[in-house]
């Protein structure tokens, strides 16, 4: 009876109308989801040769970009029109295979490496050398992927 006499009656709804805590809780939920997604993606990255395959895919996309034609022409126009799709497409494919089936990494790495080399004489000098270089780097990164020595905690090797 004695308290809250000064407040108007309309303020007393029996619950707080302050939106701040609810907003914070909601943001927190989104943040928690993002953090979970990030940690999942990190684990996914660490269990497969992620970066090598990414370079392989970039190399393939680059080669296709410089040799992209109407799909009808690529199908009917023979090797000189379809070479970019074939070489670039197989680089992309082996990149995806490496991501989805990391068990085959030594095979897909070597094959990606060879396709990147083969793209040089067949597909516009391997996308003007850039695609071939990326493919070679990516392929060898995939091939050499595996267990490493645990990181030492300090420069002295403790």
């Amino acid at each position, binding site marked *: 009876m004695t308290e809250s006499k000064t407040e108007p009656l309309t303020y007393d709804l029996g619950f707080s109308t302050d939106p701040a805590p609810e907003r914070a809780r909601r943001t927190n939920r989104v943040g928690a989801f993002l953090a979970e997604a990030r940690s999942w993606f990190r684990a996914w990255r*660490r269990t497969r040769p992620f970066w090598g395959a990414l370079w392989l895919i970039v190399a393939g996309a680059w080669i296709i970009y410089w040799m992209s034609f109407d799909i009808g*022409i690529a199908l*009917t126009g023979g090797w000189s029109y379809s070479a970019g799709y074939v070489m670039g497409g197989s680089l992309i494919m082996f990149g995806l295979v490496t991501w989805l089936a990391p068990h085959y990494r030594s095979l897909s790495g070597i094959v990606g490496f060879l396709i990147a080399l083969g793209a040089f*004489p*067949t597909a516009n000098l391997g996308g*003007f*050398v850039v695609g071939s270089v990326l493919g070679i780097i990516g392929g060898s990164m995939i091939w*050499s992927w595996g267990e490493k*020595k645990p990181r030492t905690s300090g420069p002295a090797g403790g």
Partner: protein
Amino acid sequence: MSPRARRFERTAPWGEKPGVRSVWGRLTGRLYRAAYAAIDRAAEQSEQMKAEAESVRRGSRKRSLPLMICGGAALVAMFGAVSQSALAVNFTTGNSKFKLYSNYLDAEHAAGYLAPTSRQGATDCDADTADVQAQCGVTELGIHQAKLAGLCGIATENIPLVGNYSLMITAGDDVPDSYNGSSIPTGTTTDPSTGKLTDGSLDNAISATNLYLNSDALSGYGNKISGMNLGQSAETVGESAGLAFEGNANQLPKAGAFGLYARQLNVAGLNGNSYGLNLKGNITLPDLNIRVVPGARTQADCS
């Protein structure tokens, strides 16, 4: 079966009276069971994956270096072989407007006609850096056996946030800063009677078989062109030159349309805007040099 999926397991006794409701229940129950089982399996797998990610450190190891070095060496060797005309490459460009310069074109059996480019969509044919999708009218020029003294190709690409970048490809003899359009550039040796390349220029020439060029502007100085037939029906020129034009129905030569054929087509100081340089055969590129340089470049930057 995971606990969540087990919730939807059949509990009602068999021999239930068949009815819409029971059939519906069975179907949805099965669906939920499968869905939750799949979700739980995925969750389990990602837990496993996380545990595996934490257990040992993995990554690309040092043994990738020898392989990378081998690959780089093989690439350098191939580049050298192309520069010394020992390795023929397949070279086809399609989606960017190239500027082509050459000191001298010596073409045996050339055929040409008018066609639209292979791309469709918006039209902006005059832009300096071509609209990738533009469909423009161009001449389709096919050459059975081409020899080029010096070649300089420039493609300018506008990369977002970075600005203009030019890709420059040079091969063969040096291309001078400009052509005067009325004489053969100095240093190019040609046969005085036939106009074909000879001596030093022939030795250092870029040679291509079954070369197709579609361009909207070509200029130069025609030198001793022989066996020229202007106005030949377009669908017969390919046959005269021993070439087979390819493309969609729109692009193929039409009967009765304007076509030209030349047994020997020599053009000095060739300068063209090309939409595509397509090769059905092979090309040898002596002294090949590829550079990517900032800014829009012109012929003066070729040498």
